[in-house]
C-alpha cells in the first residue's frame, strides 16, 4: 500500500520476494526507488500516480529496479483508494515480475530469426549450386566439342598414343560433366524439381546395357565383372525414368569398382515379391554397420578421410531417385565379405 504521496505504507511478502527489500528497509520511502533513473528523471512514478488518481486505476509495463540494482520487467497495477467522502487516502499497488515471459518471448524471436536465417542460407546454397553448375558447363561444352573433334581427327591419323590420351581426356571431361549434373540434381532435389520422365520398358536389358558400358571402368579397377539376369527377369517391365535408373545403376557400379578394386563385382536383375530388384555386390571392405544408413545422406560417405575423392552425393541422389519412383535403395554387408546394394522398383504402370 502507498500513501497519497506515493510512499510505501505497508509491504507484503510477495513484494519483498520480487524486489528484495525487507519491510523496515522500504516503508516510508517513495515508490520512485523502484524505477530506473531514466524513468525517475522523466517523472514516470508521479505521472502514474496522477493517472491512477484521475482514472481510478492505471496499469503499466516496464523495467523496475530491485534492491540489489538488478532490473526486471514488471506489470504494475496501481489503484486509487478513497474513503466514503471520495477523498484520496492512498494507493494499492500490485507488481508482477514478467521477466520470464519477456525472456521466453525474446527466445522465441531469436529462434524465429535463426530459422529465417537458416532457410535463407539454404536458398542461397541452392541458388549457388544452380548458377555454379550452369557456369561450369559452358567451358566444359567447348572442351568436349574440341576433344570429340580431335578424336575424330585421330581416327584418320591413327596415332595410338594420342588416341589413348584423347580417350582419357574425354573420359575425364565426361566425369566432370557427371559431377556437375550431380550438383544440379542436389539443387533440383532441394527445390522439389526432381521430376521423372516415365516410359514403359523392361528392366533387365537396360541394366545389362549399362553394365556393358561400364566394362571399361571394371577393367581399369581390375574387377572381374559379371552381369546376370535371373530367370523370369525378362518379364520385369515397369513405368520408370530410364535415364534416372541408368544413373542409379552407374553410381552403384562405380562405387563397387572404387571400393572393391581388384576383386570381383557382380550385378543381377531379378523379380522378388512383385518388385524389380537390382543388386550390385562387391568384395571390398564393406560398409561399417553404423554407416549403412548414413551413407545415403547428403555429403556422407562410408570411408572417411582422403582415400577416396568425391562429395559422396551419388547415393543421396540415388535414394531420392528411388523415392520418386516409390522404390527403395539399401545397403548391407555380406557374410562372405563385401557390400551389397539393392534397388527395388515397383513393377507395372505408374501409380496415378
Amino acid at each position, binding site marked *: 500500500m502507498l500513501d497519497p504521496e506515493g510512499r510505501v505504507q505497508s509491504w507484503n511478502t510477495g513484494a519483498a520476494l520480487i524486489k528484495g527489500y525487507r519491510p523496515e528497509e522500504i516503508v516510508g520511502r517513495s515508490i520512485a526507488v523502484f524505477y530506473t533513473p531514466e524513468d525517475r528523471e522523466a517523472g514516470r512514478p508521479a505521472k502514474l500516480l496522477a493517472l491512477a488518481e484521475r482514472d481510478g486505476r492505471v496499469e503499466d509495463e516496464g523495467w523496475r529496479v530491485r534492491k540489489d540494482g538488478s532490473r526486471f520487467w514488471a506489470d504494475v497495477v496501481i489503484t486509487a483508494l478513497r474513503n466514503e467522502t471520495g477523498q484520496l487516502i492512498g494507493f494499492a499497488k500490485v507488481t508482477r515480475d514478467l521477466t520470464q515471459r519477456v525472456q521466453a518471448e525474446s527466445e522465441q524471436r531469436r529462434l524465429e530469426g535463426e530459422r529465417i536465417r537458416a532457410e535463407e542460407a539454404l536458398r542461397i546454397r541452392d541458388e549457388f549450386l544452380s548458377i555454379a*553448375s*550452369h557456369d561450369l*558447363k*559452358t567451358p*566444359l*561444352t567447348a572442351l568436349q*566439342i*574440341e576433344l*570429340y573433334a580431335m578424336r575424330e581427327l585421330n581416327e584418320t591419323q591413327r596415332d595410338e598414343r594420342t588416341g589413348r590420351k584423347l580417350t582419357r581426356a574425354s573420359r575425364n*571431361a565426361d566425369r566432370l560433366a557427371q559431377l556437375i549434373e550431380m550438383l544440379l540434381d542436389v539443387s533440383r532435389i532441394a527445390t522439389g524439381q526432381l521430376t521423372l520422365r516415365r516410359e514403359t520398358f523392361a528392366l533387365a536389358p537396360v541394366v545389362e546395357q549399362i553394365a556393358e558400358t561400364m566394362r571399361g571402368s571394371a577393367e581399369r579397377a581390375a574387377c572381374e565383372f559379371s552381369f546376370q539376369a535371373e530367370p523370369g527377369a525378362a518379364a520385369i517391365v515397369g513405368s520408370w525414368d530410364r535415364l534416372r535408373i541408368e544413373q542409379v545403376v552407374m553410381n552403384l557400379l562405380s562405387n563397387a569398382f572404387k571400393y572393391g578394386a581388384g576383386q570381383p563385382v557382380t550385378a543381377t536383375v531379378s523379380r522378388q515379391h512383385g518388385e524389380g530388384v537390382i543388386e550390385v555386390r562387391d568384395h571390398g571392405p564393406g560398409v561399417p554397420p553404423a554407416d549403412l544408413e548414413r551413407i545415403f545422406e547428403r555429403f556422407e560417405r562410408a570411408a572417411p578421410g582422403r582415400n577416396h575423392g568425391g562429395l559422396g552425393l551419388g547415393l543421396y541422389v540415388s535414394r531420392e531417385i528411388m523415392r520418386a519412383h516409390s522404390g527403395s535403395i539399401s545397403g548391407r554387408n555380406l557374410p562372405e565379405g563385401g557390400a551389397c546394394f539393392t534397388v527395388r522398383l515397383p513393377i507395372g504402370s505408374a501409380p496415378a
Partner: protein
Amino acid sequence: MSPHVVSDKVLVVDDDDDIRDSLIEFLEDHGHHAVGAANGSEALALLDPPQSPPCLIILDLMMPVMDGSQFRDEQLQRPAVADIPVVVVSAYKDVEQRAHQLGAVQWLAKPFDLTALLRLVEENCAFAG
C-alpha cells in the same frame, strides 16, 4: 506457305566464343557451312537478305544484348525466316521446358552429344558437298 528452301548453312548463335568457334569448325569438318553470331541481334542481321537463310539455327538462351527467347520472338515475326527450325542448346537445368516454350524442334543440354547435333543438322540441311 512456300516450301522452305533447304540450304546448307547452319547458324550458330552463342555468346561463348570458344563454343561458337569449335561448333562452327566441327560442322565444317563434317561438310556443312556454318556461320556464327554472338547474340540474338547479330543473328537477326544474318537472317536478312541478301544473305541466303540458314537451314538450321543452333540457339543458346542466355546471351547479352538480345537473348535466345527475344531472338525467337523476332524470328517468328519475320515471315521469310519464321519457319527455319531452331535447336535450343543451353546449360540451364530447365532447357527442355524453355525449348518447348520457344517452339524449338529440338533441344540439347550443354554439354551436349555431338552425334545428336550432327544428326539434327543432317536431317534439316543439305550437304555442301
